[in-house]
């Protein structure tokens, strides 16, 4: 199997991404994530397999989905047996109003690159390129590495947006083709990190250390600012101490909490969203937190 034929599970390809790395970019979102961050605004990225979304307001109640289902998993429009449904996508393919949407497609590297090259003139002028994001792209290391390599072969700038939670060998393999690393650091304390995301940050920090050895890799530390969870200067100073100890060249993005997250949890078969009444952090908080990183260039909202 040649590299171009490697398939990966992709849940979105978004052209004109301007918040995920330098310039105008195309971001490829890969499905599957080992973390369960409590504020995650992409719940459809959790599972490595396709996910079925149901948009209630769009549904016409026409019932074609009920007839189309080979496993009789749809009892009535919008009432879907999670047990019986195998996410085959028959119903989503036929739903006239796109009320049912199957999230996640297996695509080859070649197919993804056909989309990516479309915006090449915009990358060239703006200093943009390809960003591989997720989910956690390192859940599909061969596909991610293949994509980044294919982009670099075409002289397209590459960025990787990752939680850093990955096996060391996959990590190094993928970084070899990465120009800009968008590295999420959610919390400095290992115990608290587990409470917020479901995993410890030990392996994440080891990988960050490894990435310092990759020549010419630009590293951007991205910190989601979640009110009540990690928005205190104390939390930020912990992260700063880690960065100082590593001694690398970093820039820091502070990403304010995204309020739109809650709505998505109602579309699929997800656990209840924990942060329902959260408001985004006020500008004063962001300004205060920004000062915690006085020795690093800081950007708010990933607009650089």
């Amino acid at each position, binding site marked *: 199997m040649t590299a171009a034929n490697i398939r990966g599970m992709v849940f979105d390809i*978004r*052209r*004109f991404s*301007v918040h995920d790395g330098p*310039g*105008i970019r195309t971001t490829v979102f890969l499905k599957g994530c080992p973390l369960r961050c409590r504020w995650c605004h992409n719940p459809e990225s959790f599972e490595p397999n396709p996910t079925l979304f149901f948009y209630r307001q769009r549904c*016409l109640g*026409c019932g*074609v989905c009920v007839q189309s289902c080979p496993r009789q998993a749809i009892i009535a429009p919008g009432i879907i047996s999670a047990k019986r449904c195998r996410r085959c996508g028959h119903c989503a393919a036929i739903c*006239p*109003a*796109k009320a049912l949407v199957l999230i996640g497609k297996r695509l080859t590297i070649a197919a993804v690159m056909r989309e990516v090259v*479309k*915006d090449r*003139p*915009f990358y060239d*002028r*703006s200093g943009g390129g390809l960003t591989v994001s997720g989910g956690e792209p390192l859940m599909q290391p061969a596909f991610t590495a293949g994509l980044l390599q294919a982009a670099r072969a075409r002289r397209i700038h590459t960025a990787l947006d990752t939680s850093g939670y990955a096996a060391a060998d996959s990590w190094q393999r993928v970084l070899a083709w990465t120009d800009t690393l968008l590295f999420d650091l959610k919390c400095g304390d290992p115990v608290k990190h587990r409470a917020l995301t479901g995993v410890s940050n030990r392996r994440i920090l080891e990988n960050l250390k490894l990435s310092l050895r990759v020549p010419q890799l630009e590293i951007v530390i991205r910190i989601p600012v979640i009110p009540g969870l990690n928005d205190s200067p104390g939390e930020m100073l912990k992260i700063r101490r880690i960065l100082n100890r590593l001694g690398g060249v970093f820039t820091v993005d502070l990403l304010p909490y995204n309020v739109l997250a809650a709505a998505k949890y109602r579309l699929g078969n997800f656990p209840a969203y924990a942060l329902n009444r959260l408001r985004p952090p006020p500008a004063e908080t962001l300004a205060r937190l920004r000062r915690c990183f006085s020795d690093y260039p800081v950007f708010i*909202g990933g*607009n*650089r």
Partner: protein
Amino acid sequence: MNARIEKLCRMLEMRTHARFRTRQRYALNLSRQTAREPIIVRKALALARQLSDMPIYIQDDELIVGGRTVFAFTHYLTAAEKADAIPLEKEGYDYVFNRVYNHCQDERGWGSVEGICPGHAQVLSQGLAGIKQMAQDRLIKRRATDSTGRDFYRAVIITCDATVAFARRYARQAFRLQTQTRDPRRKQELAAIARICRRVPEYSPRTFHEALQSVWFIHMITWLEGHYLVPLGRLDQVVRPYYQADRRQGRLTDAQALELLECLWIKLNADADMTHTAIPGDTGQTLTLGGRDAGGLDQTNAVSYLALQATAEIRKSEPQLIVRMHARTPDDFLHQAAALSIGGLGMPLFCNDDAILPMLEQDGYRPTDAADYALGGCWEITVHGKANDRTNSGRVNFLRALEWALNNGRSFRPGLARGLPTGDCRRFKTLAQLKAALKQQIIYYIDTIAANCNRARFAPAPFLSATTEDCLAKGRDLADGGARYNNTGLLSSGLANTVDALIAIDQLVYREKRLTLPELLAIVLKDFKGHEALRQQILNRLPKFGNGIPAVDRLANELAGVFIRETRRRRNQRGGHFRPMLASASDFVSSVSKLGASADGRLSGRAFGSNFSPAPGNDQTGPTAVVDSAAAVDQKRASMGAVLDLRFHPSAVQGAKGLATLATLIRVYFERQGLQVQFNVVDDRVLRAAQQNPADYQNLLVRVYGFSTTFVALEKDLQDQIIARTAHGV
């Protein structure tokens, strides 16, 4: 913005200037003697009457003075002339094939010369005294032979004298106020104003201040002569020499130059409501900045930058800024211009010199004239001071042509004009056959409109003609073929929805064979009643223009190509030809009440895409894909303009990166030979809030189809259409 400008802005918002206006309508005394004068002389006398009688005013702190205080035009027609009216068509015919005589008609239905900028450069370099001298010289030479020329030159002399006298009234008023005021600073300013108004526009200005005052007098008097849509042309080029001379002599600082420009901007806004258009803000007061000359040298200069700055500070819709771009336009100029768009002003409209100059040459414009192009009322590409291009004389609606093709020449709604009987839709066994019928309808549409345009007649325009070089040389009024170029523009609308509808027909009828064409037509004629699932399927599942899908974009190019080719082939009655536009003007909302539903899932009565932009909400693949689609439509011969609208959510274009992002989109689109692009950067939530509480959003500006205007002043259907447009980058 300094204290003076702040104060003048406050006065503008309080509309203090409006109290000087009068409702009086002046009539020319048509005594036996005057009635015997030729019509052009009477028109000049009517303007002179208005200029001598109209109230004048100078307000505190003003540096540029003058303003229109009457709206109605002076009567000058005799009873016999009034009877010589162009018969109006019955409603249905008239609507579909357009009120070609356009706005600002006189009692006979004769149109005014519109969308033409007076030749400011000519007036500045010679002064009206020079122009009058030239007219007198010619008058002596031609006295015996050419009565048309003789009448024309007499009319020119009358308007020149009247204008100079009008400026003198202002000089006297300034002098009077000067003697009354105690404030020594204002005393000085008024003395200067008195001096300036005695100098210009009679003589060539000596300073930047004089140049701007001259431009303003000429501009406002053009409105008074009864023209509709009065652009300002390439002001940054026209006044550059005066700016440079002042700077060299150390007479002027940039802060003072900016202040003067801002004073002019305030004047343009003060009188902006006195126009005949239905939509507030559609004033046609475009001002074109930057660009390159025929040799490729960049013409952007300090005044261009100051003009952008003035608009950024004043934040009002006038003047409607246009930026000419080319490969070597300085990045900082582009960024400063893009900052206006991002700042939510809906301006400027960006134009691509590298595509437009060769296109104009192809269209018969001399290279130096082509390089001097500026825009008419909105986006119409013309050459001021040289051309009388009747810019928006008629409009072709692709959606109506499709109705005719599907319905054997009948419109979907009863009582409206018919197209050609191209046969029952059962006959169309393939998409190609349907397309052939559609093309026949488009051609018939163009023929009918072109014939109608060619019946139009125009009222004389002696004042505007006096500022036009060729008119003076030939002794012919603009309305009488005096200009060097005399072409006619045709608008087009509904392209994107028509393409989407054809794609839907192709998919459902010819590929999937889910239903026959007559069956689909019956559903569309019933406005999709009882077929919502089918409509949703069309809306959600079928490819649409604006997403960079090659097959769809090719179809758009094919239909646009038919319109462009056929329009260009037709000659007008004034020795010119027709020039096509991929631009809709207000048709995308104003004609919806006369259209049925369409097979793209659009219900009847719903607006469609503005200009040749994607149908609202159908561009779901981001702005780069919109650029792909738009660039796939060959605009090289859409010689009077092709306008793409893009809307962004403010978060997509924030900060320094936002400027670079917008600049990239413009540069890439123009490298791919796109002609013109304009942006709305505004959040849906803000627009909805403005609909709820208009009082809190008096200063919210949006781009409509070719101008910026106050959102809350628009009719609700237009507001909704803007909200419905896809906001990229949410």
